[in-house]
């Protein structure tokens, strides 16, 4: 599903440049649930941004579902993001003047799905994250866990090939964290490919595979026995 070969990325900080990713080789099969771990500054967020086409790489190859991702125009990148990827952020990033339903329907709007169908689909996804009754509420009226669940519903609404989650539990207490992870696991059970960036060990162990990053290189890549979040809820 995802294939990366010898990926490099550096940032210019004034006169000196900071080499963040130093040759990443990495691939993800369909249906995997991968945790990317590492201390801050290890390059995990940068990797996720490149995977998410929010940022470009300096060199290296990146294939997403067999499509080479290289030198995309902004328009093309937007199209690919919409078609291939769903995003979940640490700070939820819901649009605060739109209701939960409208937030979930947004990616569908960009796919030019008809209004009626969009609403039905969005409601369906809200139902799947257990927030059907909250459809008309604004983000400010939801708790952190609820917000993140709306964000996950939004990410899933476009039926992406890969779900990218950047510290999805970073702003939540552990109980809600497990609820969110439970949701992510269930989505994974349905066969969706998911990448989770985290620095929390317990969260990482709820995935099926852990990739450790340190100083811009992968130092460890192991498949693990998944801990079901259900047990902690």
């Amino acid at each position, binding site marked *: 599903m995802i294939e990366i070969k010898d990926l490099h990325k550096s940032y210019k900080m004034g006169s000196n440049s900071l080499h963040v990713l130093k040759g990443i080789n990495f691939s993800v099969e369909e249906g995997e649930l991968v945790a990317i771990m590492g201390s801050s500054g290890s390059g995990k967020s940068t990797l996720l*941004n490149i995977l*998410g086409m*929010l*940022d470009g790489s300096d060199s290296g190859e990146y294939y997403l579902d067999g499509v080479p991702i290289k030198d995309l125009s*902004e*328009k093309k990148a*937007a*199209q*690919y*993001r*919409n*078609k291939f990827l769903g*995003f979940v*952020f*640490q*700070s939820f*990033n*819901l*649009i605060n*003047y*739109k209701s939960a339903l409208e937030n979930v329907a*947004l*990616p569908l*709007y*960009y*796919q030019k799905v008809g*209004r009626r169908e969009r609403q039905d689909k969005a409601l369906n996804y809200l139902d799947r994250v257990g927030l059907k009754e909250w459809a008309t509420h604004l983000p400010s009226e939801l708790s952190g866990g609820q917000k993140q669940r709306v964000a996950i519903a*939004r990410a899933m609404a*476009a039926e992406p090939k890969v779900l990218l989650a950047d510290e999805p539990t970073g702003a939540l207490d552990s109980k809600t964290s497990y609820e969110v992870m439970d949701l992510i696991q269930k989505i994974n059970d349905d066969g969706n490919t998911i990448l989770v960036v985290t620095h929390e060990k317990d969260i990482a162990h709820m995935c099926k595979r852990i990739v450790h990053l340190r100083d811009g290189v992968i130092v460890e890549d192991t498949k693990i026995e998944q801990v079901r979040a259900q047990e902690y809820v």
Partner: protein
Amino acid sequence: MFNRDRWKEILEVLTSNWFRTVLTAFGVFWGIFILIVLLAAGKGLENGINADFGDIATNTMFMWTRRTTKPYQGLPKDRSFEFQREDVRSIRDNVPNLRFISPRNQLGGFSSGGNNVVRGLNSGAYNVYGDYPEIINQDPMTVTSGRFINYNDINEKRKIAIIGQGVKNDLYEKGEEVLGTYIKIQGVNFLVVGTYKKNSSDGGEEAQKEIFVPFTAFSQAFNRGEDVGWMAITAKDGSSISVLKEKIINVMKKKHKVHPEDNRAIGYFDLYEQYNRVESLFSGIRWIAIIVGTFVLISGIIGVSNIMLIVVKERTKEIGIRRALGESPWSIKKQILMESIFLTIISGMTGIIFGALIIYGINALLDSVGPVDMFLSPSVSVGVVASALTALVVSGLLAGFIPANSAIRVRPIEALRNE
């Protein structure tokens, strides 16, 4: 364009901060409002002055004789002379592009005082003109009953008269038959064959108190011989009397043996020059209105642009989210541009509507208090409103252009940073 979701969003954004939206809109509103009101005021002034000119053929000059101020060809200075009837032919032969040349003679007015017209027991002092039929084109009037002078009257020197409404009111009882009666002008009987009424507001009452008789009958009755008191000369449309007058005066100087450099022997009044002077004043006023209005409008537009920039800045994160979710840059740009155009058009329309209401109010006021000097029915043309609207769309685009570009310059990754 007519996408329900997009419009919903535009309204959401604009109504999320009412106070700011209204303040921003006010700039554009005020600009258009000032523009409309200034243009209407200019138009009102123009209408007022034009009404004062009345229907008088404006491409016209009047010419009369004075004393010579230079000796010439053995003739002394301070010599007085008169235009002659045959001068009309000389001018016609020598100067092209003249439409009417009307020789005129006059009794009353500035040439003498006292009552000069008598009918039965009534009498009055009126201006009496000896005229050719063409004068009705140069000094327009409406013949309200009977007829005006014709060439048979001229050729047969018929002693007939056309009198004004004012004269009729003075000399006749109410409802009394006018046509076919006689009035005595300086002791000579004239048959009244018509009455007239003038539209032009200049001269007021006086303009209705004139009597027109055939030129030839006038000359004979009052011993003018071939003399002509003054002439009214109108040029054809497309040529200017101001250009031709030099030629006309030169022809007259030559004919009457006036020194070519004697500029005071022939007096004239160039109506066209006066009219043009007023006209250029109006176009000046119009330009001032346009310039002032435009500048006020520009400052309004800068206000819109400024606020849109702030809106974009505030929504940086939102724009980042949208792009992460796959909104195309063009769609974002379109959103900002449409917000800007929508805001400008709405506020501009309000300005136009308010301007129109003010103009309507002033017109209603003018109607109720009666005519005011030099000001009549202020208005703006549909063309002006249409071009103002076009200008609004264009300026809305311009106002949104910089903010829209800065919106799509935002990289999603930067927008989404948590710091």
